[in-house]
């Protein structure tokens, strides 16, 4: 497994050491990119250094998959320099989240390769997320569906507040991830086709009003109208921040989803929480909005032939 930092640097070398250990515990052989602890401005080394790590692993036949260690910002800067043809030929699995959403969606759009939107390795801090990531990167079966918490202890914990915005059942390939990072692809050559797809979105630590800006971009572009459905995960540490009057993202996104009659629901267990599930970009899925149920219709991975 190749470990890279396409965006910002992990806070300490201990983070890298811990992630190395996690991958080894899973039974894989971790290889850490040369530049993951480099620093240049707000990124883990210069664009050239981060690209060298990424391309090095793409071209290395002993590497089966490429994991992102941390998020932050910087993946977008790499896109015009990526060798998408080499990535497509390599058929390697890319795993990451947060800022890496723009990288994963650009790779999926350019090559058709399924990429795993997941926690970045440094965010794996619970047995749940560890097990879920391990299963996700090894299972060649169809994954179990993601279901919003609606009963028992999960309901009482209040961790996932499920809300069905527009009822209905829709099928399509999955596209999306972190809203902030995903929207930076808009109007660029790396913008994915959302026509007939299920868009899944989450975010971390952002103000509701700013999230509404990025959702408005999707609405104004027309892409929302032609998507099959929209499903939302967690918006951890998001909120009105310093505004007391600001409504929730359910209200702010919901008004236009209802206007369009777009099948949609909030509160599925993906995103950046300590119990989030990975989501495979490019896999066919079925959303039953009223039940908060996202079923995967095909495996995300195949056995190497």
């Amino acid at each position: 497994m190749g470990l890279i930092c396409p965006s910002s640097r992990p806070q300490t070398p201990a983070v890298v050491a811990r992630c190395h250990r996690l991958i080894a515990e899973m039974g894989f052989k971790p290889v850490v990119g040369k530049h993951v602890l480099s620093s240049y401005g707000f990124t883990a080394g210069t664009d050239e250094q981060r690209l060298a790590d990424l391309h090095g692993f793409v071209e290395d036949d002993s590497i089966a998959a490429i994991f992102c260690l941390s998020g932050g910002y910087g993946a977008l800067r790499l896109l015009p320099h990526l060798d998408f043809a080499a990535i497509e030929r390599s058929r390697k699995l890319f795993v990451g989240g947060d800022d890496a959403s723009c990288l994963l969606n650009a790779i999926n759009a350019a090559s058709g390769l399924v990429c795993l939107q997941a926690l970045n390795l440094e965010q794996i801090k619970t047995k749940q997320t560890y097990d879920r990531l391990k299963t996700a990167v090894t299972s060649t079966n169809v994954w179990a569906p993601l279901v919003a918490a609606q009963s028992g202890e999960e309901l009482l914990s209040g961790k996932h507040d499920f809300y069905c915005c527009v009822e209905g059942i829709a099928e399509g390939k999955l596209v999306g991830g972190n809203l902030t990072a995903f929207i930076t692809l808009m109007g660029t050559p790396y913008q994915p086709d959302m026509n007939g797809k299920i868009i899944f979105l989450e975010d971390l630590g952002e103000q509701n009003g700013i999230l509404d800006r990025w959702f408005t971009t999707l609405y104004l572009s027309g892409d929302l109208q032609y998507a099959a459905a929209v499903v939302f995960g967690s918006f951890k540490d998001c909120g009105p921040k310093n505004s007391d009057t600001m409504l929730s993202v359910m209200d702010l996104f919901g008004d236009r989803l209802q206007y369009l009659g777009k099948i949609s629901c909030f509160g599925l267990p993906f995103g950046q929480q300590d119990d989030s599930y990975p989501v495979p970009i490019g896999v066919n899925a079925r959303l039953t909005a009223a039940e908060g149920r996202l079923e995967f219709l095909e495996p995300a991975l195949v056995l190497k032939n």
Partner: protein
Amino acid sequence: MLKTKETTPAKIVKPRALRKGDTVGIIAPSSTLFQEGELEFTYQWLQKLGLKWKLGKHLFERYSEYAGSDEARAEDLMNIWCDPEVDGVLPLRGGNGAPRLLPLIDFELLAKSPKMFVGYSDLTALLTTIHQRTGLVCFYGPMATSFYKTSYSHRYWTKAIMSNRPIGVITDPLPAQIWKPAYPPPRMVIAEGHGRGRLIGGCLTLIKQLQGTPFEADMDGKIVFLEDVHEEPHQIDRMLTQLLLGSNLKKAAGILVGECAGCTPGESNRRRLSLNHSVEAVVRERLSNLGIPVVYGLRLGHGEDQFTLPLGVMATLEARGTAVKFKIEESAAH
């Protein structure tokens, strides 16, 4: 919904300059005031200019951080703009919400009565779109609760909207009587050169927000001005990078990056990254190699001092050594 991209307006329509006795229509297409009394200052300052006012019906409504529902705000915009008694349209303030109105606006109807329209920040969405759809020269500058914030802002504001003469060469605010002036210096040369073109631009967040939509700004061959407030340097990098990847910013004739108040690392209330470049480093790194003049620091946008820029009007930007000349050469109103 349309998927076609808007282009430069084929013809430029100049509004009539406001004069004593005119009426301005005050609306809130974005956010509203928390204290309605702030408008008392606005009335006093409008009176000094000999202007009368008329208020939108939904001015103080609220929906989330917006001044009422999208429908209510759009209705006020259309009604005030099309009111024959109203000579100019003056938003209360920015905030958020103007982009949500774009699908609800009848641009053909607005085009039938070209009017003085001035605003900044979130209003960028309306200014650039109305300009591109109708050809109307719209003004990026202070609005109802900000045109009287400093003498510099006020002077350029009245010069822009109450005169039919060219705004001319832009000068900086007089150095204040303080020992440690605020960063950034007003005219840092990021890239030398000479550029001439029509003006387009506004708040970077908004220009970015509309990229990839039918309301995207066309910057080809133009003098582009960009500014923002309370953003971390990495957010500025993210937005500029998206523009460089997708828009025609690269084909601009010149770029002015404004003061960007409150954008020093760690100063915003946004998510921070541990190792930060400054905005200056970002601007140098992203914009210095485009082969066009780029200047950073001019007092346009969210700072205390703010000059007013007319969209669609010819301007020149010269940057040589440490010398910068920015001139709005054509008249913006008749």
